């Protein structure tokens, strides 16, 4: 044995694998030569052997040097530079991969921007996690009640686990400047409001405690926007006065930009006056918020409030209201403020994020497939690199580096797409989406984008590694470089088939999701709202007491306006309502029915109430079932008549006519109203919920000597043409009657209805786009795999055809392969969709989450797509000329 050969063997392990074989060969050859030379003149001595061993052992230094050099060479920077260079050599591949990724990542970032702005990011207040919303439930959850003035006073005095409590109530006011008058959003807030939220005014001061009492000097606080519009950001605005609803108010301060709760609609804040001496306990007129005291928990606050509400009758033995609240079993509800603001939209948003997440997975699978195909066609190049001394690790690293570069470029483009999409889609967001003003691309969104881009790189970069990660790369590549013998390995096809199956399964899940949303949307659209929105204009009018004081004048104003509108050409009907259907806001009152007196143990009965004037039911197209609708003269000032909905009538008088029966608002001393008509049920609150029993009272109710007309009303005008053309006419007629009363929020009723379906249609549209992309990518995936397999099997197909296989049989052989992939994908996808669609059930309407029609048709669609995708390569396969195919290799 040659001295030192064992040292060479050991040292060789230090040498990077790609160099090891040559390195060892060189050293062994040198040692062998030296030993041979020494052996020429007879047997070498022990000293000779020792000398050689000493010299050979320096190979360790050489080996260490090799190792160090290789590590230096495989620096990340070099990898990246190499990756960019190599990607630029395949521009088509690179562009497709980058665009696919940019779309996938961009969609995710855009939806994440929405999710982050609405759901994740904290409310824009200091210590916002200490903010809670206060509400109440009665009758075991059947009544949702906010906060009453009386409870506010009680809680402020008694509750220790809060730092402060505030009430607010949204409204709209007429802002009069000179002869111009306009209607702006406003909020009545208790003086504590700004303090509880922890935002002081930027200029001036917040409301003083005494300004929240009846009879205090009228003051107002401006929003930043109104300050700019009205006063051009003049810093000396504090102390000036402005005319709000006919009342001159002194400006106390200006709030900073972006302030608002629960949204940023309010332009001006007015003090919410609470009279501690006689604050009603059971009039739930305002929303409540509170800031928890240091260290206090929501549970502690809830316990404290429950203790107070359960002992209301003990505390107020004289109060009928306290007894009433005990009767309905009033229970406080304390929610984190963010949860209260965001409400039920979170389900929809998370589903959307999941959806685009699926699209990204599919996009990644597609890119992984592209990379695999490219790796196949690059075998010569890779083999060359191994031959010139690149180690396996280095080749794999450079493949990974390409994935990272692709994902990085895709991510950057994606962030751009997201920013653009967010800016463009803010107006398309569903009506009533909370916190929209807070949505925007920020550093968190960019961080999210970077993380998913890296995740993508890891995901699709992993497959080429799997392909080349094991075994003797050099040998594998040398073989592959020859002519694709290695590409028939079941392992590689398995990977690519697996990716396609996964794509099909994911696409199916998305298609099922969008199919279900589409069916929900259809179901919603086919709901009969109970009224006819076509050709109906609605607009808001408000007559402040300061403008027209007396009830007769108010009634006269509305009557004259109606007459003027009816005189216009094309107007078929017109009338007023306290609130048009689906525009939000309806009141509940407890009522009494004369021939069904309430027993001592029975809970009071609540019903939805709307005050409407003559002509309204006709204008809105609410169909009369029985009796008559309202006429001029119905109301507190004339005949006390009421109209009820069909459900209401059937609930109380299932077997008899309700006409002529009497009912009243459920307080002692109220007047009885006679039912004169029954109308069809109307979806007042939403299309999803079943219509509730509803009572239509006249527009003017109350005691005969001093009745109170509804001061804020929606006018509904039915016309034969485009309802929006009536807007200038309406404004003109209102101005002619009183120029200081503005017309606000004019809308076609058809718009109101489509807004009511907007969340469903928005979700359906987004899911539709997502599943469209998924379907396209799935199609490309199947096409790619099948046509690649066909190109690999050209020779085999040639042989088959030479042996007598017919074109149709070859075609069906190829198509079968595509269909098999699709079939497996569809089967897996159906199971996954069945499991996942349950999450969606909360946003579905009128369709089950496991609707067989949707599942079946989606499965058929996917199989058809697979058929189309494999048909093209199948035709190519059948057109193979046997003689040419056989000559090919």
């Amino acid at each position, binding site marked *: 044995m040659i001295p030192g050969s064992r040292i060479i063997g050991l040292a060789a392990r230090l040498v990077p694998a790609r160099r090891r074989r040559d390195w060892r060969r060189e050293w062994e050859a040198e040692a062998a*030569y030296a030993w041979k030379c020494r052996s020429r003149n007879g047997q070498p001595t022990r000293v000779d052997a020792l000398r050689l061993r000493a010299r050979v052992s*320096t190979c360790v230094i050489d080996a260490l*040097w090799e190792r160090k050099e290789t590590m230096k060479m495989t620096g990340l920077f070099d990898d990246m530079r190499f990756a960019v260079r190599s990607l630029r050599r395949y521009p088509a591949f690179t562009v497709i991969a980058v665009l696919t990724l940019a779309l996938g990542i961009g969609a995710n970032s855009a939806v994440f921007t929405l999710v982050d702005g609405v759901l994740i990011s904290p409310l824009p207040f200091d210590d916002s996690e200490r903010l809670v919303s206060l509400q109440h439930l009665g009758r075991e959850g059947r009544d949702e009640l906010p906060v009453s003035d009386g409870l506010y006073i009680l809680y402020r005095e008694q509750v220790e686990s809060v730092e402060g409590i505030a009430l607010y109530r949204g409204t709209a006011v007429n802002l009069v400047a000179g002869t111009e008058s306009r209607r702006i959003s406003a909020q009545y807030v208790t003086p504590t409001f700004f303090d509880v939220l922890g935002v002081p005014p930027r200029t001036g001061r917040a409301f003083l405690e005494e300004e929240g009492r009846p009879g205090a000097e009228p003051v107002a606080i401006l929003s930043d926007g109104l300050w700019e519009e009205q006063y051009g950001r003049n810093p000396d605005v504090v102390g000036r006065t402005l005319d709000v609803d006919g009342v001159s108010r002194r400006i106390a301060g200006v709030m900073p930009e972006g302030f608002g709760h629960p949204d940023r609609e309010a332009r001006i804040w007015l003090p919410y006056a609470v009279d501690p001496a006689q604050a009603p306990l059971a009039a739930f007129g305002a929303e409540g918020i509170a800031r928890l005291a240091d260290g206090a928990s929501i549970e502690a606050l809830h316990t404290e409030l429950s203790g107070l509400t359960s002992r209301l009758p003990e505390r107020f033995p004289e109060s009928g209201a306290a007894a009433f609240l005990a009767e309905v079993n009033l229970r406080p509800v304390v929610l984190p403020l963010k949860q209260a603001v965001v409400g039920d939209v979170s389900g929809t948003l998370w589903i959307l994020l999941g959806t685009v997440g699926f699209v990204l997975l599919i996009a990644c699978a597609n890119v992984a497939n592209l990379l695999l195909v490219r790796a196949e066609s690059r075998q010569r190049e890779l083999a060359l690199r191994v031959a010139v001394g690149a180690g396996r690790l280095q080749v794999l690293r450079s493949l990974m580096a390409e994935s990272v570069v692709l994902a990085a470029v895709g991510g950057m483009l994606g962030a751009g797409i997201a920013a653009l999409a967010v800016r463009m889609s803010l107006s398309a967001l569903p009506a009533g989406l909370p916190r929209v003003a807070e949505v925007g691309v920020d550093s968190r969104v960019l961080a999210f984008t970077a993380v998913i881009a890296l995740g993508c790189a890891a995901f699709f970069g992993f497959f080429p590694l799997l392909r080349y990660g094991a075994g003797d790369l050099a040998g594998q590549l040398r073989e592959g470089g020859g002519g694709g013998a290695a590409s028939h390995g079941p392992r590689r096809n398995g990977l690519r088939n697996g990716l396609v199956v996964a794509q099909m399964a994911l696409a199916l899940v998305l298609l099922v999701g969008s199919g279900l949303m589409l069916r929900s949307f259809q179901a919603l659209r086919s709901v009969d709202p109970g009224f006819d929105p076509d050709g109906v204009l609605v607009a808001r009018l408000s007559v402040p007491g300061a403008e027209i004081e007396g009830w007769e004048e108010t009634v006269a104003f509305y009557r004259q306006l109606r007459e003027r509108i009816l005189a216009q050409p094309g107007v078929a009907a017109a009338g007023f309502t306290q609130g048009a259907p689906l525009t939000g806001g309806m009141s509940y009152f407890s009522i009494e029915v004369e021939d069904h007196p309430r027993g001592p143990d029975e809970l009071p009965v609540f019903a939805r109430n709307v005050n409407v004037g003559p002509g309204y039911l006709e204008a809105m197209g609410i169909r009369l079932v029985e009796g008559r609708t309202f006429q001029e003269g119905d109301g507190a000032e004339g005949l006390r008549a009421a109209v009820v909905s069909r459900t209401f009538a059937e609930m109380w008088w299932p077997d008899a006519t309700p006409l002529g029966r009497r009912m009243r608002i459920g307080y002692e001393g109220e007047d009885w109203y006679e039912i004169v008509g029954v109308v069809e049920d109307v979806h007042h609150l939403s299309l999803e919920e079943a219509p509730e029993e509803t009572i239509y009272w006249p527009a003017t109710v109350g005691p005969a000597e001093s009745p109170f007309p509804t001061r804020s009303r929606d006018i509904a005008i039915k016309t034969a043409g485009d309802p929006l053309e009536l807007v200038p006419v309406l404004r003109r007629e209102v101005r002619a009657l009183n120029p200081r009363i503005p017309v606000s929020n004019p809308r076609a009723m058809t718009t109101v209805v489509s807004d009511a379906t907007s969340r469903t249609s928005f979700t359906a549209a987004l899911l539709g786009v997502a599943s469209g992309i998924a379907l396209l990518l799935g199609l490309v995936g199947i096409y790619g795999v099948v046509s690649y397999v066909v190109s690999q099997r050209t020779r085999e197909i040639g042989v088959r055809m030479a042996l007598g296989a017919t074109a149709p049989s070859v075609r069906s052989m190829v198509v079968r392969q595509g269909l098999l992939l699709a079939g497996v994908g569809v089967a897996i996808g159906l199971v996954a969709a069945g499991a996942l669609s349950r999450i969606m059930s909360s946003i579905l309407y009128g369709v089950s989450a496991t609707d067989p029609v949707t599942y079946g048709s989606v499965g058929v669609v996917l199989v058809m797509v697979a058929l189309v995708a494999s048909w093209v390569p199948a035709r190519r396969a059948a057109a193979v000329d046997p003689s040419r195919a056989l000559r090919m290799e």
Partner: protein
Amino acid sequence: MGRLFSLTYPTAAVLLAIQAQHRYGFDIMDATGLPDGTVYPILRRLERRGVLVGAWEEESTARAEQRPQRRYYRLTPVGEEALAEVMERFPALHRLFETGTV
């Protein structure tokens, strides 16, 4: 053009040894008299910089002597240029190797 390697005495010695037809690792060690551990790293570095190129000797030669093929090194055109600089900087050094050749 900047130089691709630092022209130290050991590097110069290795280049001159190769020019003087000492082409194998152990031969170069003998010819230069450099410590055994230094020669190979110099060869590797020079090869990587394109100054030298290594190749396997003819199989027949090795087979005739019943030993494995050795790897020999020769100068590339870059190496020839580098050598000119060696001559300039170490004018006396090349004589050391001329005596070594036959």
